[in-house]
């Protein structure tokens, strides 16, 4: 998916020439202006993601240099020093999160790799797992070593069948080579990695719902506190990290935290980010760029500009949960602080671009349909609110709206946000709130049209 260049080669990951999985590779992309970290290997022509290929590029050297040479606490310190922040959405500093695990706890502790990437407009983890699985695995083993876990689970989105097969295959290779399993590389450390496929619920990407689902229960978010760091999987200390976060670890270990911390927009947003650019651009795809790059540069220089050369009308900077931004925000730097200051969030790195002519009501409705479908139903405001919002939005878009609907929408959004167990409630109101903020006139036009045509609409009934 990196770029829209021609797919020129097919390679196999099977042993002895048995074609197990066909991996489509794009390799005629123009060389990017910045050094690639995560996508570097897979952009090499002929790179298959096999263990041999990964080792050729220096793979698993970080692990070799860590086991027996660095103390787990040192690894955590390095990661903290690098400033690495979670790439799943919330952007919590990874090293700090690891530090929350109880130091003196005797029982088992777990690492969960959150590969449930389900945010609309986000597809980076999928590529990282399918194209370079060992990079993720090495990160997992390093994280396990740092937090003292002997078991890691990769909770992968159910629809990513290929990814899960590739990971299983890679785990087999790594286990045979002694990178995973009992006594990793003779260090006395045991790390076992398991792939668990989800069953198709967006909410299972929420870390506590993920843990519930992994335990075999209905995937509903848990009340926090207690946090997973103390009461996680099977009530044991647990770290949940995103795929991209973990994939960064080998590079941080190998090249040092100072190198990493210098990339991007230090001190708070370090390293690169794989942005998933989609929508009305010429070359949608994953682009790894240093944090702090402007949206303008990402869209016009990397993604090739707008599809039909119409002006850009709106974009979402960080996946469906992030509020919409306008062309006025094109020069906002894509890092955690600047995007937040602009009234949105960097989130999962899914940049969705919309051109002039797109109906913003339709765009908000489309996302609202998604959130309505995916609301788990645990909390009343989100459960009932999502069905209410989506019905009202459908009505407005179908030119059956009333002017007072707009106030009701905003009021409902206010009553949902911040009143639920997990962040879903905040996420689902973002499209409506932000489109109403920036493009209220589009709503008003639709309603005026409805009024002018005197279209039949239900009378408002006060219900007690």
């Amino acid at each position, binding site marked *: 998916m990196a770029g829209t260049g021609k797919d020129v080669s097919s390679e196999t990951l099977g042993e002895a020439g048995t074609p197990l999985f066909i991996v489509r590779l794009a390799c005629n992309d123009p060389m990017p202006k910045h050094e690639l970290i995560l996508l570097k290997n897979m952009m090499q022509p002929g790179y298959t993601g096999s263990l041999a290929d990964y080792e050729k590029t220096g793979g698993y050297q970080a692990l070799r240099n860590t086991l027996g040479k660095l103390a787990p606490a040192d690894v955590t310190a390095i990661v903290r020093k690098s400033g690495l922040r979670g790439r799943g959405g919330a952007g919590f500093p990874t090293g700090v999160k690891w530090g929350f695990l109880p130091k003196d706890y005797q029982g088992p502790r777990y690492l969960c790799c959150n590969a449930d990437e389900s945010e609309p407009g986000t597809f980076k983890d999928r590529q990282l797992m399918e194209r370079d699985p060992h990079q993720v695995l090495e990160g997992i083993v390093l994280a396990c070593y740092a937090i003292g876990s002997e078991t890691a689970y990769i909770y992968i989105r159910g629809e990513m069948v290929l990814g899960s097969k590739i990971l299983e295959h890679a785990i087999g290779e790594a286990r045979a080579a002694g990178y995973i399993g009992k006594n990793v590389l003779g260090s006395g450390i045991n790390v076992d990695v398991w792939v668990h496929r989800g069953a198709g*619920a967006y909410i299972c990407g929420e870390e506590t719902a993920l843990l519930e689902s992994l335990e075999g229960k*209905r995937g509903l978010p848990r*009340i926090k506190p207690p946090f997973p760091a103390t009461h996680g999987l099977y009530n044991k200390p647990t770290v949940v990290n995103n795929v991209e976060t973990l994939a960064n670890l080998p590079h941080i270990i190998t090249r040092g935290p100072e190198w990493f911390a210098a990339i991007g927009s230090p001190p708070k947003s370090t390293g690169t980010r794989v942005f998933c650019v989609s929508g009305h651009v010429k070359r949608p795809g994953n682009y790894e760029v240093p944090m702090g790059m402007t949206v303008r540069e990402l869209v016009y220089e990397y993604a090739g500009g707008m599809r039909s050369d119409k002006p850009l009308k709106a974009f979402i900077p960080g996946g469906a949960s992030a509020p919409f931004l306008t062309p006025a925000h094109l020069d906002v730097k894509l890092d955690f602080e600047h995007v937040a200051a602009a009234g949105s969030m960097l989130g999962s790195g899914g940049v969705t671009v919309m051109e002039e002519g797109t109906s913003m009501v339709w765009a908000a409705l489309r996302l609202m349909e998604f959130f*309505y*479908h*995916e*609301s*788990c*139903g*645990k*909390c*009343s*405001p989100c*459960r*009932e*609110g*999502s*069905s*209410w919002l989506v*019905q*009202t939005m459908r*009505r407005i878009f179908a030119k059956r709206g009333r002017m007072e609907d707009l106030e*009701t929408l905003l*009021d409902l959004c206010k*009553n949902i946000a*911040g*009143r*639920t*167990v997990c962040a879903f409630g905040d996420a689902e109101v973002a499209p409506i709130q932000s489109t109403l903020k920036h493009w209220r006139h589009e709503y008003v036009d639709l309603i005026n049209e409805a009024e002018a045509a005197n279209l039949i609409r*239900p009378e*408002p*009934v*006060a*219900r*007690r």
Partner: protein
Amino acid sequence: MTTPTAQMVRIMIDGMTVNVPKGTLVIEAARRVGVMIPHFCYHPKLKPDANCRMCLVEIEKVPKLQTACSTPVDEGMNVRTATTVVNDAHKSVLEFILANHPLDCPVCDQGGKCDLQDFSHQYTATSRFTETKRVFQKEYFSPLIETQMNRCVQCLRCVRYCDEVMDVKALAPVGRGTMTEIKHFGFHPLDCEFCGGCVQICPVGAITSRLSMYEYRPWMLKRAETICGYCGDGCQMTVQTKGQELIEVNSAHGAGRNNGDLCARGFFGFHAASHPQRLTHPLIRRHGALVQVTWEEALEYVADRVNEIKAAHGGPSFGGLISGRCTNEELYLFQKFLRMAIGTNHIDSSARYGHVNGLQAMQLVQGTHRWTVTFEDILDADVLILVGTNITETNPITGLKVKEAVKKRQATLITIESLEPVVDTMSNIANLSHHHFRIPTSDTHHAIVGLVKAVLEQNLTQPDLAQRHPTYVNAMTSALQQISWQDLQAATGIEPDAFVRAAKVAAGARRVVIMAGQLLLRSEQGYSGCLTLLDLLLLTGKLDAPGCGFAPLAEENNDQGAIEMGTVTELLPGAQPITNDTERERIAKQWKGELPTDKGASLIEMLERARVGSLKAMFIVGENPVGSLPAVIHAEASLRNLDLLVCQELFLTETAALAHVVLPAASSLEKHGTFTNTEGHVQAVRPAIEPVGDSRPDWEIFSALSILLNSPMEYAESKEILKEIRSLIPGYSSLGPTPLPPKVDHSAVDRYLTDGYQRDLASRYHPISRASRPDGTVRLELAQSLFHSGKLSTRSKGLLQVEGSGRLRISPSDAARFALSDGDRVRLSSTSGEMTTEVKIMERVPQGTAWFPSHFGQAAVQLFECAIDPITHVPSFRTATVSMMKVA
């Protein structure tokens, strides 16, 4: 859970200061100062889930509103529950909850006691929702429980109760988001324990009882707080009536020893009292048939016949048998009537069927006739040992205490049961067990012996016991040396290591409670098994340790009362042995008369005397020996031989059909009195309806007869009898709502350790000989079913809908062996007789065993052998080896 040592914190709620233990939830702290925070999903019995979001409150220094149900208090916390922000939040959440609600209050059974209704009223809630409401397809749910999912607020209380408290897990949310509805598993009607907990805990009208569907509004009902009459747990319940009509039973949270929890029998079993076949008039046998007469006629007839027989044959030619389902007052008056007005000691009650075994063992070893522990000690126990209980089906509410101790308080559970640990429609205590000894009921005793042997061999005995009582310890050691591990393993199929592990856990724990259930108490080894369990406590030094003790579970609701009221032949009121002369004199003096001096006969002996003709007359109250004793006892022939048989009954049972006089009695829903539950709590029984027809409480009948017999025992109301009981039995007067359990009597323990143990040491610890079962046979056992208790429940329409007939429960492997599938008919035959019945395959039944529910067991009971304990005279007729054959 708060402990007295918990650190206290000081917080402010709406400007009021309150001191609560650290960790208390804000919602509970607010309740203490009278601030009720609205909520749907929170319930004190359940872990917080914080899903309804109704209980949002403002906490100073916390940016967002917090749910009071999931936030523990912290020192100095300042909570505000009545600000505009909070009020708006509550209103908005209510608006959301009302959005998809059908607002069908006029036809909703919850109307008038509905949280959603109340809060809507409180917040004058309106909803701007004008979209289309979500509608669920109506589905048939179960015969007893109705669901109306459109009313559901998805608080999941029912699902969580079913899992966390009941451990049944019959319910689950299905679907996502606004389409979430509560369902059960499978494409058949709900099949579960039918405890009614989901009905009780539902804050709205989504789950209701079908037994009272569309029949009432809450304000039409009259309520009576009384005690359930089905088992020894003694649950407090509220019976709700409309005139003489029984409408509904429930139990308020925190009420009684059951803390508001009920089982299927309590919740759905109340219709027995209003069954159309209730006896409503006295009957006298004339020309071979029972004919209706007036009370005057019937009572005078009985008095005349009694006088005649007494003049001719003397007082000891009379006998009496009473059910342990009667109130304490009735049990007391019955034995006083027999002992004083008639002059006989031939008295027995249904406690004889098993409870006497546990009692005699306790009296011998620790000198008490009650548990030395309470339900609270079960909750606080470190180790619980369950022996032959099948507790879910026999004593469901005591079972809940065990489940709570294990699931929420990390107690270790050791079970000696015949249950296979499998998951099926009912909770299975074996699933929670840490050390499960799965053993056929008839071999239960071997497993107990195994534990004692492990204790002795691993040197787990209390250190100074061997110094203080070397002869006891030596005698035990040498007796157990004769039993080899090989034999034990051959008999039980359990490795010695397992015994050692469990013994170590029990001996190492601080608070150990041993519970013995019917399957042990009613077995041939009932008495010796109890003694062996007490030996186990003695050896490990737990007998008199705080929080430790032995708890035999009473089968019938007032078995314990029957013992304490002296309604068994060997005991006087106060459970004093009849051989105790000072007690005899004291009681005789109080009663202003002479107590009969003859040694009384127990039930089986009475029947034997009746058969040979030395017993001429019997009073049988609420018992049915013809129906419940095996054929080898020849109960029917014995009773036919009597010159006078007077039965006081609710229904015309097999025994009552033989009677010369049948007097209609009032059920426990129709009278005042007290029941003593299995742990010794004396609890008030109150009438919910007037006695049906001309029926009268049993005590009134005894009282009336005593007047006609010229030794008047007159009482204006049952309270006066209770007053007399209190004056007679030391300690009874001080019984409050939460009496302290008795302490172990150390002089009794010393007597036992010196020579008491010798009486039957040899019979308890003897080398094991194993009889093999021939091919083509199964071990038939009578089992208690959760949905029935005694014969009364088989008249309850609610329970009959769940289990309407007796079906032989067999294991899947036996089903395969005999080529049987569910619903096939089989013929069971033994040397004593044969019967045909339907089979039901249940995974929890162990291989080689077949269980038949005892209350449908009329035919089955005829197949059983009967063994009578030489010391306690308990007849045991619960197992038989029968051959099984499929019939067309």
